[in-house]
Every structure is written in C-alpha cells, then in structure tokens.
C-alpha cells in the first residue's frame, strides 16, 4: 500500500532539510569554546529555550506514538500524554532551577558536585548513555515506519536503508552545528510541529461541526465503542492493569531524569530563565497533547482501527494517514516532513547529550582527570557522535515496527530508576553519600535493564524483538514499578550503611548555590 505521491513527500522533506542545514551552518559560526559547543554559550532566552525543550520533548513518540495509541486503543493512549505532561511539574518544582544553579554542562556535574567525583561521574555518565540509547532506538523505529509509509517501502531491507540515511543526516547535523545549531533546529521544528498539529486539529473538529462529543461518537462507531473509556489495552487482566500502573509511574517520574532535557537547562543564562523556559515548555507541550487527543480520535473516526493497523508502519502511521485523509498528498507531504524533521532533531539532541556526557564526564574528567588539551574534549565529543550514530542505526534496524511511545516509555523507566533518585537525594538530602549514589544509579539502571531483557518486550510474545524464542520471566512490559522504588531504596540504604565522611563544606556550598544561584555559570559573551 502506497499513500500519496512519493516525489511530493520527498521534495517537501528535502526542502525542509536544506533550510535547516543553512540555519545550522549560520548559527554555528561562533562555536569557539566548550561552553559554546555544549551549552550554546548559555545565550538563549527563556522562551527560545522553552520552545527548544518542547522540540526536544515532542518527539516521534508524542506525535506518531500517541496519535496512534489513541486511534487504536482510545482512552488508554491518552494516559501517555497525561503522564508525559504531569511529569513536567516534577522537573519544574524539584529539579530545573536547582540544577541550573549547580551544574555546568551535564547531569553528572550536579551529581558529583559534593560526592566523590570520579565514581559518581562515571555512574551518571553510564545512566545518561543508557537512557539516550533507548530513546534513540524509539526514534529510529518511528523513522523507519514513517518513511516506509511515505515511500511505500514494505520490506525490511528498504527500511533499513532508510534508517542508515537518517543516521547519516543526523551525524552531519550534530558535527556541524553543536548545541547552538541543534537548538535552532529544535525551535524551528517545534513551531512547525505545533502549527501543523493545530491545523489538523481544527480541520478534524470542523468536520464534526466543532462538536467534540460528535467526534468521539464517530470514533466509537467506526472503531470500537470501548475506545472512549479506559481498559481497551490494559484492562484485559490483573497483570495488564499492573503494567498500566508501572507505565504511569515511569512516565511521571521519567522526565526529570532525562539527560537531554536536563542539559537544556544549561543553555540559558540564569535559573530564572530556566524557570521561564520550563513554563513555556509546559504550555507548548500541554496544548500539543490536547491536539493529539483530537487527532487520535479523529484518526479512529475517519480512518478506523483496522486500516491503521494494516498500513505500513502500523500503529505509528495514524497521524500521517489522517493527514492524507484530510488534505491529500500535499498535507501528507508536509506533515510527514515535519514528523521526519522531528525525529531528526530529537535524534540530534540525544546524540549531542550522549556525546557531551562521554567527552566531558568520562574522557575529560575520569580518564584524563581534568587535564585535557584545549579542544581535546570537543574532538572526543565529535568522535563520540559518529560512534553513537552508528550504534543507533544498528539498534534502530532491530526495533522496526514497535510503538514509538511504548519504546520511549522504556527510556523513561530507566531515567526514573537510574537518574532521578540520585538527583533528588543529592539536592535535598544532606546525609546522602557516594555509596548511596552508586548503589542507586547502578542498581536502578541494572534492574531496569535486566527486567526489560527478560520481559515480553524482548522475547516470548508476538510483538517481541527476538521472535521464536522465549526467555522471559518478568511478566510486565514496563519495569518501572519494580526498578524505580528499588533505585530510591538503594540510595537510601546505601547512604545509611556508609560512614558519613562526605565533604560537609561542599554540601553546604551546593545547598547555597542551588537555591541562590551564587557562583553559577554565566553566559559567555558573544
């Protein structure tokens, strides 16, 4: 099945890529120092950065994944958007400003501030890399599905080639642009995505005379009456209900531990601007999710569950199919280009986060113990970008066909288990120790990874990544309900079981700096 005219889709997409590349090249001319490359010289305003955060956050999972989940599973898909949104309150109230005031480039800067630096930095970098990797896989799955729909490519080889092309483009973006270029791409893309979704939302509502109830009625009539209430996907058994709870926990606690989101707080000059940017992001993201509610039910009503599931790209193709239904090839081309650019931009943001973490935390501070030659760190970051690009391409080929929102929820579970406990403890609990941090980070990360490997996601179910074998023993598809409490518990127990020989003066300094912004990194002069 081929939807629309492939050449229209490709030319619109090509034009978009050309425009953004020009902007990246222009913006990157001033990349001189590490602060420029990683933190965009700390020169962005709150609203600019907020839009970029929204751009980072509204990935393929939010657009393709949530629209598809609502179109197919109705109300159960709605939970994703609620969890993804409410999670921002954790970031706003407990993390964003305090982190901006304390750190420099990466999450590890904050976590190792008052604890023993090298082991904690190493653990934090490991967590960062793991989360980025899972998040990247999800984006790659989205890219594969989207393009296979656009070009009518159904075979695995064709989709794999597409993923290789996306990976190549992404490596170019990040190598050339650094954080400043990436931030501009995020801003442009966020605006396009929100405007595109708004247009489609109004269009869908207009078809139903701006009566939301009628739209719901049509969705129920065309797909399944059960889509209006919870339970279609997760209400089947006690186990699936528990899975829903696990997912909800991971969603709400994951955001504040996502390294690529945390890194965005460093691209603004002050904590106050960090606050402003989170507020902007919350409004933009919240409004976008309201659109996806309409788009998801709209796709259910106008296209129907069966057609969506039968299309190339499966559940992830609901939004592009809806665009074609509404505005033919041209709207499909535009929306797909926006969705594709979304993936590209998010992948770039994730890659640069992982590269920064490796270069700054592992290479500069652990391997070289802070003694790197000028530009050595940036050079390592660039090499890391290439390596991560290759890994993401390989992984993306492996997870083709999975729901993107579901895959991203795994990254959220890892972030909430491995990163969030240590972030909160080190900011708010003076008695927290290095042992607590290491137990919590490695324990949370390890348990989350192990539970994913031995869950139905990997083997033993129809939709598993590895087909034909069954080595699963953990029944839930999201590990959050076990690994998140475990991460918190290990941090607490580990701290209580260690001598309190941490640097008291450092703890006091962190306390003061996090709340007052005294001595925080300033914007570099441009």
């Amino acid at each position, binding site marked *: 099945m081929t939807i629309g005219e492939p050449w229209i889709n490709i030319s619109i997409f090509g034009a978009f890529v050309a425009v953004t590349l020009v902007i990246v090249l222009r913006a990157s001319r001033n990349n001189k*120092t*590490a602060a420029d490359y990683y933190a965009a010289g700390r020169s962005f305003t709150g609203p600019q950065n907020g839009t970029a955060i929204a751009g980072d956050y509204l990935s393929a999972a939010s657009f393709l994944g949530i629209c598809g989940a609502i179109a197919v599973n109705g*109300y159960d898909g*709605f*939970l994703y958007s*609620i*969890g993804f949104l*409410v999670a*921002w*309150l954790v970031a706003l*109230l*407990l993390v964003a400003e305090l982190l901006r005031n*304390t750190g*420099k480039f990466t999450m590890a*800067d904050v976590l190792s*501030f008052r604890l023993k630096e090298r082991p904690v930095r190493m653990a934090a970098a490991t967590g960062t890399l793991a989360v980025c990797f899972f998040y990247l896989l999800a984006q790659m799955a989205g890219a594969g599905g989207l393009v296979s729909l656009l070009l009518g490519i159904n075979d695995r080889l064709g989709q794999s080639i597409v993923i290789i092309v996306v990976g190549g483009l992404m490596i170019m973006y990040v190598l050339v642009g650094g954080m400043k270029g990436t931030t501009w791409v995020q801003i442009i893309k966020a605006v396009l995505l929100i405007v595109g979704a708004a247009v489609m939302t109004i269009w869908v509502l207009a078809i139903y005379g701006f*009566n*939301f*109830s009628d739209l*719901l*009625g049509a969705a*129920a009539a065309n797909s399944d009456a059960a889509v*209006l*209430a*919870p*339970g279609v996907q*997760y*209400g089947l058994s006690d186990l699936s*209900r528990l899975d*829903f*709870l696990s997912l909800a926990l991971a969603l*709400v606690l994951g955001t504040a531990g996502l390294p690529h989101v945390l890194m965005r707080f460093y691209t603004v000059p002050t904590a*106050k601007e960090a*606050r402003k940017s*989170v*507020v902007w992001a*919350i409004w933009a993201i*919240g409004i976008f999710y309201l659109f996806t509610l309409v788009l998801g039910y709209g796709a259910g009503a106008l296209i129907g569950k069966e057609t969506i599931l039968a299309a190339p790209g499966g559940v992830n193709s609901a939004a592009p199919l809806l665009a074609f239904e509404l505005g033919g090839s041209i709207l499909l081309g535009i929306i797909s280009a926006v969705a594709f650019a979304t993936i590209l931009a998010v992948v770039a943001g994730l890659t640069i986060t992982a590269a920064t973490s490796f270069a700054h935390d592992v290479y500069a*501070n652990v391997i070289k113990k*802070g003694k*790197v030659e*000028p*530009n050595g*760190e*940036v050079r390592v970051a660039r090499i890391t970008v290439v390596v991560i690009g290759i890994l993401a391409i390989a992984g993306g080929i492996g997870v083709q066909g999975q729901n993107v929102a579901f895959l991203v929820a795994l990254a959220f579970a890892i972030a909430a288990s491995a990163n969030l406990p240590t972030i909160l403890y080190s900011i708010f609990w003076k008695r927290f120790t290095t042992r607590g941090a290491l137990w919590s980070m490695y324990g949370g990360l390890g348990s989350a990874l192990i539970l994913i490997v031995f869950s139905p996601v990997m083997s033993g179910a129809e939709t598993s990544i590895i087909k034909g074998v069954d080595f699963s023993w953990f029944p839930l598809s999201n590990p959050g309900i076990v690994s998140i409490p475990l991460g918190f518990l290990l941090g607490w127990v580990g701290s209580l079981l260690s001598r309190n020989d941490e640097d008291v*003066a*450092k703890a006091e*300094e962190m*306390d*003061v*700096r996090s*709340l*007052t*912004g*005294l*001595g925080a*990194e*300033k914007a*570099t*002069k441009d």
Partner: protein
Amino acid sequence: MSNAAPSTSAEVFTEIERSRPFRRLKRKHRSFVFPVAILFLLWYFAYVLLADYAHEFMATPVIGNVNVGLLLGLGQFVTTFAITTWYVMYANRELDPIAESIRAQYDTDESANHEDVTA
C-alpha cells in the same frame, strides 16, 4: 576539576548557609515545593488508579459522549497549568527577592566566571 566559583570561598558558603536570610529562603522554597509535589502526585495516581480499576465509573457519560474519564484526564491538564502558574507567581514574589539580595551581598566578582575548555 573544581566546581567552586573562583570568587567565593568555602567559608563564605558555610557562613551563608547558616545565615538567617538563607534559612528563610530554604524554608520558603521547601514549604512550597514539597506539599505541592505530594499533592499533584497523589492526584495523578488517584486518577491513574481510577482509570486502571474503575472502568465503569470512568465510562459514565456526562455531556453527550464525553465521559467522567475524559473530564478527569482533562482535569490533569488544567491542574498542571494551574500549578505551573501558581509556582511562578510564588517564586517571583517570595523566592527571587531573597536570592537576589544574598547574591548581591556575596557575589563580589560578577565577571570572573568565564570558563575555558578545561574548567
């Protein structure tokens, strides 16, 4: 590598940590963010549990095809926006002035913080 600002020594931080204005700032910050965080998490999980275990209740129609579940879900959006606005107002009014006055008092060297690659 040292995270300390070159202009402010460890003793100064200890001094600030024990000062009255800082204690007040810390109390005001925590007495807002902790209760509010507990509140919105309780409300979120109450909603999730209802969606998970009370399908009948959530499916009760209210206006046309719009049911209790959808209204509660949209309620999560409303409370998120409301808490965001509330916190910003609170921080601007109650937290920022204290933080600013502490910074003004102790930050003697505003411009000495330019980082280089290895910092």
